[in-house]
């Protein structure tokens, strides 16, 4: 998006934050559990993927951190905030680096984001529970991250293509 007025930037940021909060809520309504505990779609990450192409990196971090704190206080607890924060920050960092390298498509970037989101959460779990036993979960979580990342990437791409006309 070309640089526009400050108020437009703030409005866009507010809208994305509201959207990601709503998506966090929608996620709690979806009963799909994929048969494996701890695995979910990560709908709120859709906003991060879209934001990657719409707002600056600084704003993206701010967006993710505010979203995690707000949704954590509303729907979760201290532990879930820690998990989401670690996942969010690492996945944004990885996606940002991949976008800077400028080789991957949005699908690849989203998949890498999904994988690293899960890995970061696993590392936090290792620290909190003080055990390395959770490494058994790594293969499952990597595959899950790839799948959900791909899905989020596809949706994010379609949204990005369509909202371009709105931002003229």
């Amino acid at each position, binding site marked *: 998006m070309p640089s526009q007025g400050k108020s437009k930037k703030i409005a866009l940021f507010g809208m994305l934050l509201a959207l990601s909060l709503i998506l966090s809520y929608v996620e709690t309504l979806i009963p799909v559990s994929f048969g494996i505990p701890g695995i979910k779609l990560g709908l709120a990450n859709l906003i991060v993927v879209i934001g990657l192409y719409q707002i600056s990196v600084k704003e993206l971090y701010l967006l993710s951190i505010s979203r995690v704190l707000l949704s954590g206080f509303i729907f979760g607890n201290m532990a879930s905030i820690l998990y989401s924060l670690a996942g969010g920050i690492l996945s944004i960092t990885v996606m940002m680096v991949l976008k800077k390298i400028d080789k*991957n498509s949005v699908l690849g970037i989203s998949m890498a984001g999904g994988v690293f989101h899960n890995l970061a959460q696993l590392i936090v779990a290792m620290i909190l529970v003080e055990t390395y036993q959770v490494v058994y979960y790594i293969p499952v979580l990597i595959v899950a991250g790839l799948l959900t990342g791909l899905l989020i990437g596809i949706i994010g791409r379609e949204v990005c*293509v369509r909202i371009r006309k709105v931002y003229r």
Partner: protein
Amino acid sequence: MDEKHRKFNRYDVYVIFLSLLICGVFFMVIMNIQKKEADKVVIKVDGEVQGVYNLEEEQKIEINGGKNILQIKDKKAKMISGDCPDQICVQHKEIGKNRESIICLPNKIVVEIQGKDEGELDAITR
């Protein structure tokens, strides 16, 4: 987003390939660990060992003063009740192979199967 970032390209295949490679490596490591024979059940709460039990004796063990109950039967351990909200540990299938574990995150409980020649080694290797 410009045109070239929309289509799946070969760098995206690298992402998948690398992820699956890491996945495979961990899978092999896990398979190797599980080959060893197991005969002990170690229960840890908040990282500290609470008790070591024989996998061959049938028994019910109360953890955290009855918050969670672990059942050992037919050389397998299963969490039969817990007061945690998500009940993931209770839904977990029974464990009996070496290094398998049931983890209850809300109550910080780790139940782990260990082999004959292991045990306190875990505390030393860092």
